[in-house]
């Protein structure tokens, strides 16, 4: 059966373009211009994945509200935020609404589809028993590349998809400096330096939530970052 994707986006042209791209990939797509219509549809049937714009018609932060309600209905449903403003990334991360990823609209359709595919893969992986070969262990870190989950001292660190890919890229070759471009490629995003910096900052903060002494991500000024065990 086709996987269904819901796109909640008030800009019709973007919504239709995204829908067309997802449809081409073989997904069943439904689009909603606002929170009310989306919730009505979600109440009848939940989609397999939701792509939500933050500002919806008359609600500047309607996407957040929608995300919260959706997460209340399903804990596993993958949710991707789309934002027009870079600054909203910080707001999203701060709210910790349980979204699986947040992306700017600069992102190309190919990258977007890659993410969607990745998230579906993760959902599938979570349903299967964990496979040891997919797991990377680096000291206190346990990283499951299939399920895209991260444990630190056996505690779950809730990373978004982008953050997970950055951590994955860093930990694959610990001690090696990854520059910003390499990190961006790994995360399938096109971001400016600031955004990478704030992603790194958020990753550190999320690890520090479970371990105050966390200090494994080092900045190499002028070069990039590296994972230190």
């Amino acid at each position: 059966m086709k996987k269904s994707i819901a796109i909640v986006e008030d800009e019709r042209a973007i919504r239709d373009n995204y829908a067309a791209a997802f449809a081409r990939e073989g997904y069943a797509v439904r689009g909603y211009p606002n929170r009310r219509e989306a919730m009505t549809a979600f109440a009848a049937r939940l989609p397999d994945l939701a792509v939500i714009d933050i500002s919806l018609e008359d609600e500047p932060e309607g996407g957040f509200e929608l995300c919260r309600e959706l997460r209340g209905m399903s804990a596993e449903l993958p949710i991707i935020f789309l934002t027009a403003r870079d600054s909203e990334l910080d707001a999203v991360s701060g709210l910790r609404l349980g979204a699986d990823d947040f992306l700017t609209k600069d992102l190309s359709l190919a990258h977007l589809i890659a993410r969607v595919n990745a998230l579906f893969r993760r959902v599938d992986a979570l349903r299967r028993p964990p496979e040891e070969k997919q797991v990377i262990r680096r000291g206190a870190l346990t990283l499951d590349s299939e399920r895209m989950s991260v444990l630190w001292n056996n505690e779950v660190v809730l990373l978004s998809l982008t953050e997970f890919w950055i951590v994955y890229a860093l930990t694959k070759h610990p001690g090696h400096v990854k520059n910003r471009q390499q990190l961006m490629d790994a995360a399938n995003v096109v971001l400016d330096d600031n955004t990478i910096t704030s992603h790194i900052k958020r990753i550190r903060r999320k690890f520090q939530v479970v371990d105050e002494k966390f200090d494994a991500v080092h900045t190499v000024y002028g070069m990039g970052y590296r994972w230190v065990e």
Partner: protein
Amino acid sequence: MARFLELLKTGPISGFRLRTKLLLLALTTLALPWAGCQYAREMETVLRESEQQSLLAVTTTIAGSLKGRKELLFRADSLPGNGGERDITPMVLTGAPLIDGRADDWDSDARSLVRAVGPGGDSLRLLAATHERWLYLALLVHDNRWIFDASDLNSLDPGTLGDRVWLAFDDKRGGQQRLFFGSTGPGPVRARRIETLEYGRETAVEEPRIEGVWQRSPDGWVLEIGVPLSMIGQHLGVLIDDRDRRGAPRASYGTLEASDLRATGRLVAASPDLNDHLRQFAQPGVELRVASASGALLTRLDAPALPGDYTKLRGFLPRMYRLFFDGSIIPRSVSQAERERAAQELTARAARGKAATTLVAGRYENSVIVAAAAPIFSADGKQILGVIQLAQTADRWLTLRDRALTRLLNLTLFVTLFAVGAAFWFAGRMTLRISRLGAAAETALGREGNLARNLPETESRDELGDLSRSFSSLLGRLDEYTGYLRTLAGKLAHEIRTPLTIIRSSLENLESEAQASGGMGQAPGGLGENAKVYIARAREGSERLGAILAAMGAATRVEEAITHSDRQRFDLAALVRATVDAYGGAFPNRRFACVVPPEAVELNGAPDLIVQMLDKLVDNAVDFSADGATISITLQADAAQAEISVANPGPPLPAEASTRLFESLWQSRAEPDKRPHFGLGLYIVRLIAEFHGGTAQAANLPDNSGAVFSVRLAR
């Protein structure tokens, strides 16, 4: 008026500070004392003229009372001036001469001098003077030989006689008095008269009322005589019996008839009653003189003392005032002789028939004598008998004027000082306020943020307050405007992003569709080669647009990043070293020289932001330097702050750049290059420097071979 204003703007005082100008303005109050002086002078002129007029009136009145009263004026029954050469016109002395046989205390007045020439080159000069009730005579005799009497006892024996002097006058009863002086040696002598006793015997009787002293002089001898005026009638004369040896025949010469010793020369002098008559007109401070029509002084009544204190004011200020404001109207002090001459001139003017008045300088500096003279006419009014002259010191009104002037000047000086002080204070306060406002306005323009709120003076209700409020609202608007401009880029970037996303996703869809249909063979939806080129171009265009948007939003992102930044302690030296190492790879066409102290430079800040700041500075240095140029990055630090400088060879900064370089949306690129620039790079540098409690500055290298940008950070 317009020219005056123009002069104020461009003239010599236009360069002065406000305070100096106001001070000069305050000095114009010095015109007050000047005006006061003019007024005082006017007053003085009026006073003086009225004084002169009243004195003239008094003079004319006295002259009227003497009209036709010849007998009161003169002893002689005939008028003076038309008499013979034997007339004696005594001068009027102010003090009695000492009768000592020396003539050196006499003024030699031509009018009172009578000459007589004797035989053998001998001569007589006769001086006459009156003082009070005495007539004084001085006989200056040139005589080659002075012969004394042999004895006092037989002074009538012709054989014993030496030189002898006869004095003869008619007395009031009409009789003739003949007296002689003879002496056995120099010294006091008595006048003697010859009286005939019974049997015709003659004897010499001393006249005790007449004094005399006989002395030798270098060329002869001098006989000085004092005779009471009451004894003398209208005629007077002297005769000298000159002998070459004792008992020799006499050689007589003088003003007497040698034959009968009768006096024919008249005594031209005031009648004894004149003084009594004049005394009734005497006033304090007024001197009276009566002169004959020929100018010979008949009598003088000295001024009784002036009541009250009219002496000159003393002290420094009055002296200064007099120095500055007494002009030419007050003559300087003159000698006694000059005053006499002036009095004689006035008399001469009156003697021509018309009353006259004049000002004469007094004995002391700045003292003035007002004099008036009027002719005394004969009864029929056709002849001028004499002249009466009144003189009065003007010290009284001069002193009054001085006092008024001094008081006025003291007052105006005080007022001026006060005005100058007030003007100085006011100007100082005004200047302070204006410069404070100016400084505030300048700094308000220099920085971003809340410009309008901190201006001083906005509470004041005067024009400065208005100015300040105008400034405030102007700066407020400017603030809004720059704020709008600053956020415009970010807003635009955001607004353009949505349509850009539409274009981009549409292009991607188009490509994907083409690939999908192309893959299934020549379906109608497939794209030709040309269409692919166009799509590629459209993608390229949209990517460039995306880059532009990213650049436009950069400042906004940095501002947001700053608000979310956490400070931490880190080693700035290591950071700079590592970062500069990395630039070598990023810019292979430039060389980088890095001067960093070997020890750690601890800084409390956000290392990410510092790196970003360095990136911007190095970007800037790379942009403005040629390939192969060396960009030097220097870190210096002291206890309080650290300074990072990035210097590059290249064109010097434009003149206006040094203050504006670090402002938002400012750029001085001469040639646009391919990368989008919004003048935000150095603005970001400044934002980050300010976040670290520091400043950013730009300057040219000392030899103008390039520019150096430096950032100071508080440690």
